[in-house]
C-alpha cells in the first residue's frame, strides 16, 4: 500500500471516529512543540560551535535533555506577579496572546499537499493576520508590567511590527500575483512552473525583503530591539518569570518556525524537491525549514543590533520601496510572459 492509500484509509477511519481536523491539529501542535523545544537546543549548540564553546552538554547524552530540564525548571519556578502591575489580567493573558497567535498560523500552513489542518481559501492572509496579532501580546505585556524598561520594549515592538508588517505583506504580493491565489497549497502547486520549482528566483527581491522582514517580525537579532538585553535589560518581558516567561520564549520560537514555514511555502517550493523521496513526502519541506531556521541562528551569531531609528529607516526607506518595486516588476513579467 502506498502512502496515499494508507493516508486515505487512516483518513477514513479518523473521520469516522475522531474528526480529522482535531487529530491533525494535535499532531501539528505536538510536533511543533517538540521542534520548538529542540530549536532552543540546536540554537545553543550551533551558536556554541560558532563561538568556540560547547553549548549545553550536562543533561543527558550531549545535553539532549536540556530543553526538557529547562521546561521543568521554568514550570516549577515561582510565578511572580509584581504588585505594581498595571492590570493583573492583561499581565496574565499577554503571553497567551503571543503564543496562541503564533501557534494558530500552523493550522493553515501546509506541510504536505494532503497535510494541512484547515485548508482555507485565503490562508496567506490568516498567517499575516496572526503574526501581527502576536505583537499585541508583546505590546500588552510591555504596558501591563508597568515597568520603565518593559514600556520602552513594548513601544519599540509596536513600532517595529507595524512597519515591518507592511514590508512583509507587500513582499508577498508578488507571490500572490504569480500564483494567482492566496491559498498556500495553491501557491506551492503553482511553483512547479517556475525554475527549480521555487519562487525565490523570479521573486528574488521579494524573498530578500521577506527574509529581513521575517527576522524583524520575530524580534530576532539584528532586530531584537524590543528585548535588547544590553539596553532594556529584557524589554517587554523583564517583569515576567517562571512559566509566563517561558510562554514568551515559546512564542518567539513559534514565530520563527511559522515565518520559516511561510518562506518555504511561498518562496522555496514547499514539499517539492529535485526528486521525490519515497515514504517521506514532507522530507524536502523539513529540509528547507531546518535550513531557514539555521539561517536565523547563523544571523544571530554574526550581526550586531540596529538602533531604533536605523531600524525604522531600513523598514520604511529601503524595504517598503523595494517590495513596491518588486510588485511593479512582477506585474510587467506577468503581462509579458
Amino acid at each position, binding site marked *: 500500500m502506498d502512502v496515499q492509500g494508507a493516508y486515505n484509509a487512516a483518513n477514513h477511519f479518523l473521520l469516522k471516529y475522531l474528526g480529522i481536523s482535531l487529530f491533525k491539529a494535535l499532531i501539528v501542535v505536538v510536533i511543533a512543540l517538540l521542534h520548538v523545544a529542540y530549536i532552543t537546543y540546536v540554537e545553543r549548540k550551533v551558536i556554541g560551535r560558532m563561538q568556540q564553546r560547547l553549548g549545553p552538554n550536562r543533561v543527558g547524552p550531549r545535553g539532549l535533555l536540556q530543553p526538557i530540564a529547562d521546561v521543568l525548571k521554568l514550570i516549577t519556578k515561582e510565578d511572580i506577579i509584581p504588585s505594581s502591575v498595571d492590570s493583573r489580567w492583561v499581565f496574565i493573558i499577554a503571553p497567551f496572546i503571543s503564543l496562541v497567535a503564533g501557534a494558530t498560523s500552523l493550522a493553515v500552513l501546509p506541510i504536505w499537499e494532503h497535510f494541512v489542518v484547515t485548508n482555507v481559501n485565503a490562508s496567506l492572509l490568516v498567517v499575516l493576520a496572526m503574526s501581527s496579532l502576536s505583537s499585541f501580546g508583546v505590546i500588552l505585556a510591555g504596558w501591563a508590567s508597568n515597568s520603565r524598561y518593559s514600556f520602552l520594549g513594548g513601544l519599540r515592538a509596536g513600532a517595529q511590527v507595524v512597519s515591518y508588517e507592511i514590508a512583509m505583506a507587500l513582499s508577498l504580493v508578488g507571490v500572490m500575483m504569480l500564483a494567482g491565489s492566496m491559498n498556500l497549497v495553491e501557491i506551492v502547486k503553482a511553483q512547479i512552473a517556475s525554475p527549480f520549482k521555487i519562487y525565490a528566483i523570479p521573486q528574488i527581491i521579494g524573498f530578500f525583503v521577506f527574509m529581513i522582514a521575517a527576522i524583524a517580525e520575530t524580534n530576532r537579532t539584528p532586530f531584537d530591539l524590543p528585548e535588547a538585553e544590553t539596553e532594556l535589560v529584557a524589554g517587554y518581558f523583564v517583569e515576567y518569570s517562571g512559566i509566563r516567561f517561558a510562554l514568551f520564549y515559546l512564542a518567539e520560537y513559534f514565530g520563527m518556525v511559522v515565518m520559516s514555514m511561510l518562506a518555504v511555502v511561498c518562496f522555496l517550493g514547499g514539499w517539492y524537491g529535485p526528486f521525490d523521496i519515497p515514504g517521506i513526502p514532507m522530507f524536502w519541506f523539513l529540509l528547507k525549514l531546518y535550513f531557514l531556521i539555521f539561517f536565523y541562528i547563523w544571523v544571530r*551569531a*554574526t550581526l*550586531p*543590533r540596529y*538602533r531604533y531609528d536605523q531600524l525604522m529607516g531600513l523598514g520604511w526607506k529601503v524595504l517598503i520601496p523595494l517590495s513596491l518595486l518588486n510588485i511593479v516588476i512582477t506585474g510587467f513579467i506577468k503581462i509579458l510572459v
Partner: protein
Amino acid sequence: MPQALEIIKKQIGEDEWDEPYYVNMGPQHPATHGVLRLFLELDGEYITHCDPIIGYLHRGIEKLGETFTYSQNIVLTDRLDYIASAANNVGYCLAVEKLMGLEVPRRAQILRVIVCEMARIASHLLWLATHALDIGAMTVFLYCFRDREWLLNIYEEICGARLTHTYPCIGGVRLDFTPHIIEELYKFTEEFPNRIPEYETLIDVNRIWLKRTKGVGVISGEKAVNLGLTGPSLRGSGVRYDLRKTVPYLIYDELDFEMAVEYEGDVYARYRVRMKEMRESNKIIRQCLDKLAECEGEPVIAENAPGLFMPFDKPKRPQAAPHPKKVYLIKGVEVPVVPEGDVYVATEVPKGELGFYLVSDGAGHPWRMRIRAPSFVHISAIPDLCKGQMVADIIAVIGSIDIVLGECDR
C-alpha cells in the same frame, strides 16, 4: 544629584502629560559595566538629560592605604582597575620608588613593561568583548575571551594569580620569568596579530556596526582636553597625548612603537585607537622579550628594596608614632626610611592616565594616598557625550570610553 525629591518637584510643577520619562539605568544593568547608575530623562527614545551616579563600589581604598605599609598597599591597587591590575601595580610602585629614590634593575623594568602591555591587551580585549556585546555582536565577545584567557593563563604562570596579580613589588618585581613563560609569550606575540583581523572581520566591515558607531558620541579634541579625558578616549579625538611617549617612564623611550591617534572623536574612532593599541602593545612585548635575552640572569629586585612583599616571618606593624624614623617591616631586617615629602607619578594604563599622589611623613605607611583614576574623570564626560543621542547610543558611548567602576569608586 536628581534624587526622588527632585523628580517629585518636577512632576508637581508640570502638566501631567508633558512629564519627561525617567529611567534609572543601573546600578544593576547588564551594560553599565559594573555598578554605574545613570539617571536618564528621556524624550521618546532620545536622551534629554543624563546624570551618572557613582559610589556603589566604594571601598575606601584611599583611606585604607593610610593604614597599610607601602608594600601592603600594592594589593589595594589590584582592586582599582581589576581588569588590568598589573598596570596599577606598576604605577603605584613607580610612585613609591620615586618617593624612596630607589633604582630599579633593568631586567625588572623590562618585565614590568611586559606585564603592563599584557595588561593593556587583556584590558582592551575585555573592552572589545563587552563593547561588541553591548552593541549586539555576540560572537566577538567569546572570541575575545578566548584570547584573554590565554593571557590570563600566562599571568597565572608568572605570578600565580589571574586577576589580581600583585606581581611588581617596590624595588622591582617579585619573580623572574621562567623560560616557559618567555616561550609562551613568544608564541602569543606570534599568533595574536592574526587574531585581531578575526575580530575586525566580524565587526569592522559590518554595516550595522559602522552605523551604530560612526558619528555617535562625538567629542572634539578641545572639549576632550577640557573634560580631562585621557588615554584612548582622548587620542580618539586627535590629541597626541600618551604618557608612554610624552613623559616616558620605565624603558618606554627605548622602544619602537607608534602612538595610536584617530581624529573623528566618535565611538568608531575610539574603537580604532584601541585596536591599533593592541597591535602596538604586541610589538612592545615582542621587543621587550628580545631585550630580556640581553640581561639574562640579572637581578629583578633592587638590593635595597624594602621588606619582602609576602614575608615568611610575621611582620611588625609600623608604629604610628608622631615621627618614627626607623621602621622594621621584617624582624631583623632594617628597611630604608621613607623620606618625608610628596610625589605624583602618572602612568598610562589601558583606561587612561592613572596618577598616584603619595604624601609621606616618614612612617612606613603613606600619610595620604590619592589616586587619580581615569574612569572617574571619564564618567563625568558621559552627560556631554550622550546628550541628544538615543538610548541605544548611551550603551555604545559607555562602552567606548571604557570605564571600570572599581577604579572610579575606589
